């Protein structure tokens, strides 16, 4: 008689956590922060077509890191849920708190029930009437949900970025100043994907995906900042080309289960 293979629940979940954490930390980082004019999303993203930041609803935006195919599914699901609720109730009844809870339930269930957890971490942001009503929810691969005051850093090497951002962030900043602090943090030594370099980098327009939830805009507040508008508010040092980064591989560039 063969014995069924046994592994403890504890061990299973630890393995899944490790897989998810490793996948997410290989990627490039995203910073989401509340500023005077709304909520700012800054993602290091060398693709202009595959977005990490997206609109969900009138006052709600979405940012994600990790494996693209996985968080893309989460993003579209969020849009479907929000639009369904807004259609059957009212647009005002679509809240980030409700949606974040739904995400957390779903991702948490997948973490326990499925062989492979989501290698993705998402941030759901809602811009409020006033700054104290801005809400940032971070939902991690195991369905944990946290309500973050002020800013969220996800993906890649978050510690050096968070440490820097904590020093420079100021909720009273305008858009250009908030963008400058976000870039300053993303560029700190040690924040490059895969911990490749220990030198400070310069992220140019082509390496950035920038969007805001504009507090002053009625209705759909989300807007992408690209092209000349982005160039106009970038710090002078970032207006040039992004330096070549050989051997930089994001979490989505490597195969699932890869150990590199």
């Amino acid at each position, binding site marked *: 008689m063969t014995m069924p293979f046994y592994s403890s629940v504890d061990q299973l979940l630890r393995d899944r956590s490790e897989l998810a954490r490793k996948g997410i930390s290989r990627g490039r980082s995203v910073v989401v922060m509340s500023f005077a004019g709304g909520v700012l999303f800054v993602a290091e993203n060398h693709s202009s077509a595959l977005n990490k930041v997206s609109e969900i609803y009138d006052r709600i935006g979405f940012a994600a890191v990790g494996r693209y195919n996985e968080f893309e599914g989460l993003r579209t699901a969020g849009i479907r849920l929000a639009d*369904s609720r807004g259609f059957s109730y009212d647009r005002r009844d679509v809240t980030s708190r409700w949606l974040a809870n739904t995400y957390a339930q779903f991702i948490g269930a997948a973490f326990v029930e499925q062989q*492979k957890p989501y290698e993705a971490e998402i941030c759901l942001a809602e811009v409020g009437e006033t700054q104290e009503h801005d809400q940032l929810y971070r939902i991690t691969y195991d369905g944990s949900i946290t309500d973050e005051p002020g800013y969220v850093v996800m993906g890649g090497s978050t510690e050096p970025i968070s440490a820097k951002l904590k020093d420079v962030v100021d909720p009273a900043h305008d858009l250009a100043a908030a963008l400058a602090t976000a870039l300053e943090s993303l560029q700190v030594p040690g924040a490059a994907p895969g911990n490749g370099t220990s030198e400070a980098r310069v992220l140019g327009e082509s390496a950035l995906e920038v969007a805001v939830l504009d507090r002053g805009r009625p209705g759909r507040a989300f807007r992408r900042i690209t092209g000349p508008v982005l160039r106009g508010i970038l710090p002078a040092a970032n207006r040039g080309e992004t330096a070549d980064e050989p051997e930089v591989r994001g979490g989505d560039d490597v195969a699932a289960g890869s150990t590199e």
Partner: protein
Amino acid sequence: MEFREGIPGPRQFGPEPQPGSQLGHRAAFAALGETSFSNYVAATQPHLLPAARMFDAPRTGASHASPEALGVPHGTTIVALQFNEGVVIAGDRRATAGNVIAQRDIEKIFLTDSHSAVGIAGSAGIAIEMVRLYTVELEHYEKIEGVQMSLDGKANRLAGMVRGNLGAAMQGFVVVPLFAGYDVEEPDPAKAGRIVTYDPTGGRYDEWLGYHAVGSGSVFAKSSLKKLHRTTNDLTTTIRTAVEALYDAADDDTATGGPDLVRKIWPVVVSITGPEGAVRRSEDELAAVVEQIVADRAENPGG
């Protein structure tokens, strides 16, 4: 199909053996590759669709459901005019139920996205619900795809919704929308304004002659437009022509409301141009246009 939502993959693209079996929020996570909101709602919450809860009432006998028997409000005249920078769409403000005015200030022109608008004639309740669904449909596509639907895509989606209402239309609850949009891919602004009309079976007809009208007063409005409208006109002139056509419709059709100077109720006029997109013209602007037209008609009632 086994439901394994945690592992997005090809197995989720397969046909569903039991549509509607995925309930609650899980369905949203499983519907991979679906960009249409109305298709998603039809698969998961069909009761929310305007056409789905149509009338199972007996078709004979005393409880015969007809718009007249139910006193359902009707919308009336909508006009659309193409001009040298885009397109204008305008509607009167009256809803009728039989010989009674159901509402004096109903709005029958809706902005459906940044570069399109829809006017509705027919059963007001169903039409408004249809436009509401249509607006979400366009926004949903834009958010999921990251780009707006093409103008012809927008026109075809609306045709599908009108077709979905055919069962109700057969019982008298007809909805006839009029679509006006600006094709952002057309380099010449004089050609970018587009007007599309529909019949109750969902037939879609592009109007290339520069104007169209739907609703009970449309015959009179079209006669007016034929004489007054030129596609080479500018925005100001075109807004005046649109309001004048509605005035002519109200002059001869009891179900179309003329401008109400006592209550300050003006027609709803929306202009759609390249730089500004779809914009509802302000009350002040329309008040000036209407007062001028009324003054001119006081001198010459025929216009």
